[in-house]
């Protein structure tokens, strides 16, 4: 199949999904009303609750949800063949993805901008809130581990990446200094720092890591894992304007430019898919169902989006009618990003893919970016360096946010046990050590599946909350309820399968050393997530029964 044809199918699915399905739900079931005051207007505090233009929120939502996951998922999942991956991306986004993103923001908006903890307490039960929040902690740990692995494998696989990453960090810190300390013009700051970052990519090609620090260190997983977590450590303990935010600011231009010109490159080259359409039901990572459905998370459906939609976007929407373009519209754009990644992976030669996937998804992504930017005249070596820094940036921006958040969570959860956990360095250190352990000891493809499973489980929990909300209001809930059932069964099956595979290797003595630690840790985290999800599901179904009874009684009283 031709790659342009895939993009056209993506546009058609997006158009139908956004223009007809989402519009029908928005108009007939949710009954979005431009005259209803949103929390942003009712509780405006100029900080969290702030009426904001839908165009700005479109950009904000896109930036918040489009990390490395929509790119890596399809690159790994293409091992089952490009056809099932394509079908899942399109159908997942059409039937489930936008439903979750849109309804999470709508639910929070109609409940005074409450976040998931408050909503689960109100709509399901007090116990649901505690379990949900502890679930989120382990979910974040898996994000740190999975994305950490991407950074490490990219830094090892592409020797130009570390220098480019270093320059990007310097550019970001410099941007913070220029904006916040020297009060320089934002356009000047942007131009100067983006140029520094771009020069860094060129320097990376001239001074690859093996020339600078020697081949041993350049190929050491320890070195790059520690580098990644030291980076996150600074992001977590320094003031956010000093490190994390300005680096993300500069990085967003690098990513945006790469994607923009990359898509143009696809249209110029319009290559055919070279990898097989279907390889088989059972491959090394596991069976197509349920494992492929969690391997591709973002791009089809992702629980992370529901957190952003409820705690971030819902408090800034100035008009209920904006929830569809921001919630559903951005999801379809992310679906297109996943298709871009699928094209990158699918159009390289099978032998090339087989060799590159052993080194990690960053190598494949960089090769694809290099190829499509090459269509616009960029030298291949520079294009590969550009792709590698894009991959690192996409992963590390989420990682630093996660580690910062885990620092806060450690303090919240454990400060009663000992006051030492209130210390920012202690919380960050704990999060970093757990993350490094996962990165260094876990096989990256299993780690990715576990992260995907936790992510999808988060999505099904969000859909459960949405279903409970719709039932409590007496609205039709089928459009959220059935996707929730599908996601719940699929992700529980995926987590049980992966955890069982991991722990059976431990118990049979098939793994030793580092892999023993990694398998045990990942297996236990997987089982904990399953357990938490089952308890939540029990609570959720009790709530559904409660709402049904209330409605039946009300109907009887009316009659």
């Amino acid at each position, binding site marked *: 199949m031709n790659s342009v044809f895939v993009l056209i199918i993506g546009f058609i699915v997006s158009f139908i999904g956004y223009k007809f399905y989402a519009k029908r739900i928005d108009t007939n079931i949710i009954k979005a009303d431009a005259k209803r005051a949103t929390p942003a207007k009712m*509780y*405006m*505090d*100029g*900080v*969290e609750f*702030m009426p*904001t*233009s839908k*165009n*700005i*929120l*479109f*950009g*904000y*939502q*896109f*930036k*918040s949800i489009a990390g490395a996951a929509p790119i890596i998922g399809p690159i790994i999942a293409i091992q089952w063949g490009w056809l099932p991956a394509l079908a899942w991306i399109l159908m997942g986004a059409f039937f489930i993805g936008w439903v979750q993103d849109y309804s999470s923001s709508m639910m929070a908006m109609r409940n005074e901008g*409450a*976040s*998931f*903890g*408050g909503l689960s*307490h109100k709509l399901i039960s007090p116990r649901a*809130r505690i379990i949900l*929040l502890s679930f*989120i*902690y382990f979910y974040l740990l898996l994000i740190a581990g999975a994305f950490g692995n991407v950074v490490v494998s990219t830094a090892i696989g592409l020797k130009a990446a570390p220098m480019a990453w270093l320059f990007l960090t310097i550019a970001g810190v410099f941007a913070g200094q220029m904006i916040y300390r020297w009060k320089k013009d*934002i356009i000047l700051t*942007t131009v100067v720092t983006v140029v520094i970052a771009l020069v860094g990519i060129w320097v990376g090609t001239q001074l690859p890591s093996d020339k600078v620090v020697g081949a041993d260190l350049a190929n050491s997983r320890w070195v790059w894992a520690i580098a990644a977590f030291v980076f996150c450590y600074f992001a977590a303990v320094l*003031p*956010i*304007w000093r490190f994390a*935010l*300005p680096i*993300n*600011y500069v990085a*967003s*231009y690098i990513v*945006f430019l790469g994607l923009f010109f990359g898509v143009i490159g696809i249209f110029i080259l319009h290559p055919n898919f070279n990898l097989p359409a279907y390889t088989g039901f059972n491959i090394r990572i596991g069976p197509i169902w349920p494992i492929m459905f969690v391997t591709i998370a973002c791009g089809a459906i992702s629980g992370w989006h529901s*957190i*952003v939609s*409820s*705690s*971030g*976007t819902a408090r800034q929407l100035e008009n209920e009618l904006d929830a569809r373009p921001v919630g559903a519209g951005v999801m379809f754009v992310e679906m297109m990003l996943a298709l871009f990644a699928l094209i990158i992976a699918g159009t390289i030669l099978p032998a090339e893919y087989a060799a590159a996937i052993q080194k990690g998804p960053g190598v494949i992504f960089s090769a694809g970016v290099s190829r499509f930017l090459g269509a616009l005249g960029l030298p291949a070596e520079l294009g590969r360096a550009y792709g590698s820094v894009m991959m690192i940036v996409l992963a590390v921006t989420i990682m630093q*946010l996660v580690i*910062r*958040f885990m620092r*806060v*969570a450690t303090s*919240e959860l454990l400060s009663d046990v000992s006051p030492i956990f209130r210390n920012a360095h202690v919380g960050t250190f704990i999060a970093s050590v757990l993350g490094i352990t996962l990165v260094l000891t876990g096989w990256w493809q299993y780690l990715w599946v576990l992260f995907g499973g936790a992510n999808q489980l988060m999505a099904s929990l969000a859909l459960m909350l949405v279903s409970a909300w719709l039932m409590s209001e007496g609205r039709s809930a089928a459009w959220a309820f059935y996707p929730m059932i599908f996601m719940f069964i699929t992700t529980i099956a995926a987590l049980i399968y992966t955890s069982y595979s991991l722990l059976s290797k431990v118990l049979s003595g098939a793994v030793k050393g580092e892999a023993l630690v990694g398998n045990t840790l990942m297996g236990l985290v997987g089982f904990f997530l399953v357990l938490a999800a089952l308890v939540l599901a029990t609570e959720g179904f009790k709530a559904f029964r409660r709402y049904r009874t209330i409605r039946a009684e009300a109907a009887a009283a009316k009659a």
Partner: protein
Amino acid sequence: MGEDDKKKGGFFQAVKEFVYGVAAHDSARFALKSRASMEHLFILITMGDMLGVPILPPYYSLRLLPYVVPQISTWKRRMLREKDLTDALA
């Protein structure tokens, strides 16, 4: 971004807003959050008795009261609103 600004815009305004949303909106929100947290902490220290925190209002609280009045309703809502871990993420 107010109503008037929005009306002005055509396609280029929309693109400008989108780029701002991708690149800088998060930074602006964090900066505002940091400032608001500091201000609200200060109000809590000086006017905490309004929320039932056992602080004997000092003389300076009375002197500061006129400056704090415009912020009181927002401050109370922000302090009393239920928060959880996900608030730190977005």
